[in-house]
Each structure stands twice: as structure tokens, then as C-alpha cells.
């Protein structure tokens, strides 16, 4: 696949020599400097959080699967900034960064990874299943493509209850490149098209479904074009550029909100590491790994802001240090938090109490007497 996007500048290219002329480039001219620096702050937080999560996984503080947003920070930050507080976000299992960018406290995310009661899902979900009703983060989902039908249904609920317009709610549904090959993807896009639902499907294409390249898995590897069969407008953007992602997401959300046109947005991104923390990614060559490192969106964005005179190196270093501190505090919070008590094992078995609900622990006799 020829990637049209992904031309994020490297630090070497953008990092100007001291004393060089610094003019704000045209694409940054209309932006508020504090917003651009805010993006750096969020990206730095996600980077620090994910590196620490890998470390905590290695120390067996985190169990199960653990998929990181390393390399995806620009997409995360740009996309989440395009959402309004009233919008709903459905995510994949690679969603720590989205929760952080949506404003969930790092401690509650780390505590969930640790399986603690203070975690954002109460210790029930783990890394793949972060959920925060207040921030309308309606879950990370562990089954590839499984979140698409429920996200589509959330958009149906919005259309059921309200009229389109600039103040309308909308749904953003994240998916990976691999999910575009599932039936759930195609069924969902079809339903969204025929029912005119306010939803934007955002495909984060990092080029690999676990270890399988997109070109080997998808008959149409330009994934934004896979909406064509449903007359859903698609757009591909550089996932390493937070502004490109944000602006494309805003355009798509506007169409969803105001015209009830579902959209498909493809952010071309890269995974700096393996599929999950235990994957050494041996299927990638050393050259490919080097190339990806050079595209790393975090130093690229820092260099871009420094080159534009919006951010100083000292300030960037201070932001990095603050991110480290925030993550250390998150780890401390998680470490100190209690496990959910076993006495609450059945607390969420059913939302509506029901007669004869099974509550036996392994080895317990069956309840065969009336209570």
C-alpha cells in the first residue's frame, strides 16, 4: 500500500538550529498556542502512561492482555479534541489513551489495569474494557469489530430521541484496520447508511492486524474507501498529525450531527511496539522499526511547536516531567487501592434483581431449598 499520509516530520527535520528564524507556519497560524501545547501535554501523558503500563505489566502488576497506544498519541489527542462532551465514544481494546484524553483521571485508568476497586470499571473490565458513563466513554471492547453494532445502535437511540442540528449528539466509534474485514463492520455501515445515523467510524490503521499486514488482509487496502458500498463518504488523514485528525473528525462529526450522514475516517498511524506488551513484533524488520521510530508523532509534534516558537525545549521538558509525575501518582494510587471484595462477586450479575439468581461459589452445594 502506498501511504499518502504519514509524512509526520522527524525531530531532525523540524528541530531547528538554535537562533534560526522562527516563523509560525501557516497551518498553525490560526491555532491558539495554549491548545497546541495542550495537545503536547496530552500526548506526553499518554506516552508516559503507556511506557509505565508496559513496565507494570513486566512486573506482573497488570494481568491479562495489555495493548498500548504508543505511536498513536497524535490520533488520540486530535480525535478526542474534536468530540463535544455530549458525544459518545466507543473504543477498541487499545484505548488507555482515549480514556486519558477524554479526561478520566490517570489513577483510575491505572487502577483498572491493576484490577482495583477504584478502577474506572471497578476492576471488572481491565485494560480492554475501560468505561466511564460520566464522560460518555461507552467502553473499550475486546472482540474485534464487536463494538460497531452497539455504537451504531447508540446513534440509532440519538436519532430516535432528537432532531439533527449543530447541537445534536453524535457517536464516534473507533476500530482498527483488522475490524474492517469483519461482518459486523459491513453490517453496521449498511445500517448507519440506510437509517441515516449520526455516527463517525474512525479506523485507526496502524498497518497491522496483530502481525498481518493490511495489504494481505483487505481486498481494498485503502480502508477509507470501504464505505463506498454504502455510499458513506470516507476520508484518509495523517494519523501522526493531531491537527489533521482533529479537523477531519470535526468535518465528519458536523455531517453526522447536522445532516445525519454517517462517515468513515481513516487515520494512518503506526504501532511503535508489538500488538500487545508481550509481542516482540519479530515480523517487522529492523529497517521498518527504524523507519517507524523516525515517524514517532511525539517528538515530531514537539519539534514542530519548538520550530514555530510556540514551545521552548525547557517547557517541553517540564511537561514531560509533569507527565512522569502524574503517572507516578497514578501508579501510587493504583498500588494503594483495594481489590474489589469477593463479597461483591455477584453485585453486577443482574441490574434487575431476579428470583433464584445463582450465587454459588465453586464447590458450594446448589440452593435447592426455597429461601
Amino acid at each position, binding site marked *: 500500500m502506498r501511504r499518502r499520509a504519514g509524512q509526520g516530520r522527524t525531530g531532525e527535520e523540524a528541530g531547528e538550529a538554535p537562533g534560526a528564524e522562527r516563523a509560525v507556519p501557516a497551518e498553525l497560524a490560526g491555532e491558539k498556542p495554549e491548545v497546541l501545547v495542550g495537545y503536547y501535554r496530552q500526548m506526553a501523558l499518554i506516552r508516559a502512561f503507556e511506557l509505565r503500563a508496559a513496565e507494570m505489566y513486566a512486573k506482573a502488576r497488570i494481568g491479562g492482555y495489555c495493548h498500548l497506544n504508543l505511536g498513536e498519541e497524535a490520533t488520540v489527542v486530535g480525535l478526542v479534541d474534536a468530540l463535544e462532551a455530549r458525544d*459518545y465514544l*466507543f473504543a477498541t481494546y487499545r484505548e488507555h489513551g482515549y480514556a486519558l484524553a477524554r479526561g478520566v483521571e490517570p489513577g483510575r485508568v491505572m487502577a483498572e489495569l491493576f484490577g482495583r476497586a477504584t*478502577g*474506572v*470499571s*471497578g*476492576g*471488572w*473490565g481491565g485494560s480492554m*474494557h475501560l*468505561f*466511564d*458513563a460520566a464522560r460518555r466513554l*461507552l*467502553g473499550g*471492547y*475486546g*472482540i474485534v469489530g*464487536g463494538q*460497531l*453494532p*452497539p*455504537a*451504531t*445502535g*447508540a*446513534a*440509532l*437511540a*440519538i436519532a*430516535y*430521541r432528537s432532531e439533527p442540528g449543530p447541537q445534536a449528539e453524535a457517536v464516534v466509534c473507533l476500530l482498527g484496520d483488522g475490524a474492517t474485514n469483519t*461482518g*459486523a463492520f459491513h*453490517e*453496521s455501515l*449498511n*445500517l448507519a447508511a*440506510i*437509517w441515516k445515523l449520526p455516527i463517525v467510524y474512525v479506523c485507526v490503521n496502524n498497518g497491522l492486524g496483530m502481525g498481518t499486514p493490511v495489504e494481505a488482509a483487505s481486498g481494498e487496502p485503502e480502508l477509507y474507501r470501504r464505505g463506498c458500498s454504502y455510499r458513506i463518504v470516507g476520508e484518509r488523514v495523517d494519523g501522526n498529525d493531531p491537527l489533521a485528525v482533529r479537523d477531519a473528525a470535526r468535518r465528519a462529526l458536523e455531517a453526522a450531527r447536522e445532516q445525519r450522514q454517517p462517515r468513515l475516517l481513516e487515520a494512518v498511524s503506526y504501532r511503535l511496539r508489538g500488538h500487545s506488551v508481550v509481542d516482540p513484533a519479530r515480523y517487522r524488520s529492523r529497517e521498518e522499526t527504524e523507519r517507524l521510530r523516525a515517524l514517532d508523532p511525539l517528538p515530531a509534534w514537539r519539534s514542530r511547536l519548538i520550530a514555530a516558537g510556540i514551545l521552548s525545549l525547557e517547557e517541553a521538558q517540564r511537561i514531560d516531567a509533569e507527565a512522569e509525575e502524574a503517572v507516578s501518582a497514578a501508579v501510587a494510587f493504583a498500588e494503594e487501592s483495594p481489590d474489589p471484595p469477593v463479597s461483591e462477586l455477584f*453485585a*453486577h*450479575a*443482574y*441490574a*434487575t434483581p*431476579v*428470583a*433464584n*439468581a*445463582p450465587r454459588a461459589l465453586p464447590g458450594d*452445594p*446448589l*440452593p*435447592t*431449598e*426455597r*429461601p
Partner: protein
Amino acid sequence: MAEMSYRQALHDALRAEMLRDEAVFLIGEEIGVFEGSYKITAGLLAEFGPRRVRDTPISEAGFVGAAVGAAMLGLRPVVEIMTINFSLLAIDQIVNHAAKVHAMFGGQATVPLVIRTPGGGGQQLGATHSQNIEVYYAHMPGLKVVAPATPADAKGLLTAAIRDDDPVLVVENLALYNTRGEVPDGPHLVEIGTAQVTKAGRDVTVVAYSRAAAIALDVARRLEEDGISVEVVDLRSLRPLDRPTICASVRKTTRAVVLEDDWLSYGVGAEVAATIQEGAFDYLDAPVRRVAAAEVPLPYSKPLESAALPDAAALERAIRETLDGRR
């Protein structure tokens, strides 16, 4: 009370709940313009319009999953899956999503979803359209599964399911749609998770659900004339299972036969038999018998299909053999 068909009872329950709650809407294949493959939703599109009665393409994973998401936002979708066989196309959405969302997210989300779907063989519909696979779902924590046998329970369980905040699978039965019975007027709710003793007896307990419960009641009434007193327990709910009612009955009668339309191995009867041995072991005077479907894909040929499905004669034989050697 009014006498009506099982079909009419389901229809009336849907209509009453739609009138009662704006959040209730129907979604499924051919439920609107076509008025439903089995006409349960007849007239509802005309009365409520396409917003409340939503026809879907042939897209089970899509529309069942969409109903899960709509329920997460507070609507109360009632999905019709044309037959339970087609639920397999949506099983990931039912098992990995509807059943998981509430617990997996720490209780922050609820899925007040109803899936109505008929099962049942005996209509010469062949191997893929004649299955009784409710046990797939009855196995699954997070779901509630009910299977009414009478028009009254059809109304009562469907109404309860719609008002419940958990995902409920309402397993209907093709062979029951035209059966008739007395149905309470006005709002009628049957508590999910409770079985019912539909006929009291002394000699043997027959445990059954759905079509099999109707057969069991017929057989029990007939055997009364032969001096055999059969107690019938209609499970009504497969998840949760009302174990105390099953065990209380068997402790009284000391013998049990299970009649089920699903396949024998790992079926509902296996769970019932295990429950009985745990809760009434000391009371049993005979092994628990199971009368279930022959373990083959259901054939089309009428004689073969009839041979594969449990019926009144098979139940009667099992009852008599269980009573042989009575002390």
C-alpha cells in the same frame, strides 16, 4: 380473563408496553410492512409508525448489536429474530455484548433488551430451521432466558421481560402460536426465575418447558384416568432456573421425568437431573429419566422427523417405566 391464542397474547403484550412506554420500540426483519413472519407484530406499524416499528435488512449481528447499543442509551428495544436458528448469526452480540456489558463495565451500563424468537421442530423445516438451541443462552450468565408454554405466560413473561433492565431472551415456539388459553386482562406480569406447578400430583413429577410443558400437561391429565397421578412443573425460566420448585416437587413424588425438545446431551434435562440428584437424592425411588430429541440434525422427511422428536407417547412410556417396580 379472555381466551386467546399465544400469538395474540404476545401481540397484546407488545402493544400494551408500547403504549405505556415511549422508550419501547420493535426492531427486526419483516416485522413492519410484512407484519412479521408469524404475524406477532401485525398492525403495529400502522398504529405506531416506522420509528417505533423498525424493519431491518437481513443483518442479525447488525440489528441485534444495534439494539444492545440503543438499550445502553436507555431505550427498551424488543428485537424479533425470525427464528432462534438465526440467532447464531448474532451470537457474538448476544453473548459477548448484551450479556457482558453490565458486569464488564462495573455496573455502569444496563442493557434493557428483549430478544423474542421462536424455536421448535416438527414443521418439516429441515436441519437448519428446526432447532431448540435455547440452552446455548441458558448457559450464559448475564442473560435471562424464559420460554412460556401458555398464552397467559406468554403475556406475563414478555411484559416482565420488557420492564426488566437486563437482556432477556424470550423463547417462543412455532408449535404454540395457535394454541389457546385464558389470559388475564390488563397488565399481567410473571416473575422471571420462577417455575410453576401447572398440575398437582402424587406419583411422579414431569419437568418441562415451552411446547414440552403443554404436552406434559395433556399426558398428565390423560394418565389421571389410568390412576397415575402426575405433577407437572413448567420451568418457564431457564435462566435463572427455579431449583427449589423442582426439588420440592420431586421430594413429594419421589420420581421424575424430564421432557425437553432440545437434544439430550448437555441439554436442559441434564441440568434438571443434576439439580434433582443434589436436592432430592434421599427421596428418589427411581433414576431420573430424560425424554429429549434424538441426537441427529432434524430431518425433513415427516416420518423421520416425527421419530426424532419427543412426543406424548415417549413421555407416557418413560413415566410408566419410571413407575414400574413402585413400592
